[in-house]
């Protein structure tokens, strides 16, 4: 726009170009950061205790929300599935419906979204507050690489616990579906389990679920650690890192879910 408020031709293109360049620069920085993390992960100094602490923070502390969410999602699936299947007289397939929708899709995606909201945001906030209080600079001045000491153990822990939490979420959801289908709606328990067992196969469904949750784990861990590590050393920087992690992490999960499903049919 000029002073008269007239749109100057070419300016939107210029803006678009600048934004595209900024995006490219940003993606380059993320890629370089990811490379740094991978480099220190394969180097011989393994920080086992810090990795275990990271697993506790990201995994154990996420258990309540994962278990409770799994139980309720399974219960809702059981209810919805039962009423829909009953219209076709196929209530006996409830186990299969609950199993397939959970293992292939809902389990990995919902676990990743819940994980992003709880563990990834907490990780980003913790790292960002370490930036604010000069703890990372303190490490640098002790000749200790913060990527090696702080970032990589947390990154690896997040990647490792994601499939485990996914498995737990799915188990609790199966149980929630069983409670509703069998205990509340009166389906036969054996039929529920048999239908579930028959529908879910290892190679296509379980392995696909693990693959998805691993990809989600890498994406969410990268976003959380990067946003924390590169945050501004202020209170608003911590807040921006936390919010950014939840927003960007969730979008990455949903987009990559579509990509994996479209490419590999998982």
């Amino acid at each position, binding site marked *: 726009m000029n002073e008269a408020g007239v749109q100057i031709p070419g300016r939107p293109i210029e803006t678009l170009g600048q934004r595209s360049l900024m995006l490219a620069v940003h993606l380059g920085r993320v890629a370089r950061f990811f490379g740094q993390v991978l480099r220190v992960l394969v180097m011989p100094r393994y920080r086992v205790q810090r990795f275990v602490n990271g697993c506790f923070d990201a995994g154990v502390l996420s258990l309540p929300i994962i278990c409770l969410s799994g139980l309720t999602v399974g219960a809702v699936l059981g209810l919805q599935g039962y009423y829909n299947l009953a219209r076709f007289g196929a209530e006996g397939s409830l186990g299969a419906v609950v199993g397939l929708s959970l293992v292939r899709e809902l389990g990995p995606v919902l676990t990743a979204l819940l994980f992003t909201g709880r563990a990834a945001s907490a990780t980003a906030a913790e790292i960002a507050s370490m930036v604010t*209080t*000069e703890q990372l600079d*303190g*490490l*640098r*001045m002790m*000749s200790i690489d913060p990527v090696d000491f702080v970032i990589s153990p947390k990154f690896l822990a997040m990647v490792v616990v994601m499939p485990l939490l996914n498995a737990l979420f799915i188990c609790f959801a199966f149980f929630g579906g069983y409670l509703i289908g069998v205990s509340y709606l009166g389906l036969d328990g054996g039929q529920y389990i048999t239908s579930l067992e028959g529908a879910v196969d290892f190679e296509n469904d379980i392995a696909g679920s693990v693959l998805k949750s691993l990809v989600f784990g890498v994406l969410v861990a990268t976003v959380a650690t990067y946003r924390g590590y590169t945050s501004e050393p202020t209170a608003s920087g911590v807040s921006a890192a936390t919010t950014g992690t939840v927003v960007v992490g969730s979008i990455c999960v949903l987009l990559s879910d579509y990509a994996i499903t479209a490419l590999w049919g998982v």
Partner: protein
Amino acid sequence: MGDGVDGSPAAAEDLRIEFDGVHLTRGRRSVFRGLSCGFVRGQITVVLGGSGAGKSTLLRLIGGLVRPDSGSVRIGDRDVARLPDGQLFELREMIGMLFQGGALLDSMTIFENVALPLLEHTPLGIAEVAEEVTRRLLAVGLPDTEDLYPRQLSGGMGRRAALARAIVTDPEILLCDEPFSGLDPVNVRRIEALLVELNQRLGLTMLVTSHHLESTLRMAGRIVFLTGGAAVTGTPQEILASDHPEIVEFLDAEGRQTHGAGSARVGEVS
């Protein structure tokens, strides 16, 4: 560059740390405009200046945490501003730094914090590390705090623990950002005595930023006063006798005491 505090040329090897034409801009604000000054090896240099004069930034430049827009920051024959990361990490093994806020890792106990540099960079066993950590904590007046977390200490105690961490590897250069801030008079004396003792016993090169004028005058071998993006250097007596308007104003505000006479040298100002 390279002049001694008395105006005579100093031997090049005496200047352990040297700033040469350092320019640094933060946003629209120019922090240093051609800063040139040297810090004598084995001496305690106190860096004075008003808020925002760049005292902490000066220490961060020496540690390579901030890179200048132009100019050089040399430690010995190495230009910190141009060292690649790997060599910078090697160089930092000879530097200890006390940050203004302590910068202790809040997920680790005081023992783990102080022991960290030893465990990372020395072959010492855990018993020797424990002995060394206890000794250093005792030296800064923090006995029986090994099992506490930084959040369980007051600000002053946290800073003393951070000082113990900064000196635990006996670095050649010690950078202290406001070590006396928030301390009671007894602990100011204790930390001051510890710094002087370390300087005398190990010949540490120390750079201390401070607003604490009394301590500054007692311990400083040399003072660097930052003003307008450049530096005025001299002995405490020379700085006290300076007629530089900003120094006069600063000292008046801090409760000026008249000691000796002399003249301060104004560093290169662009």
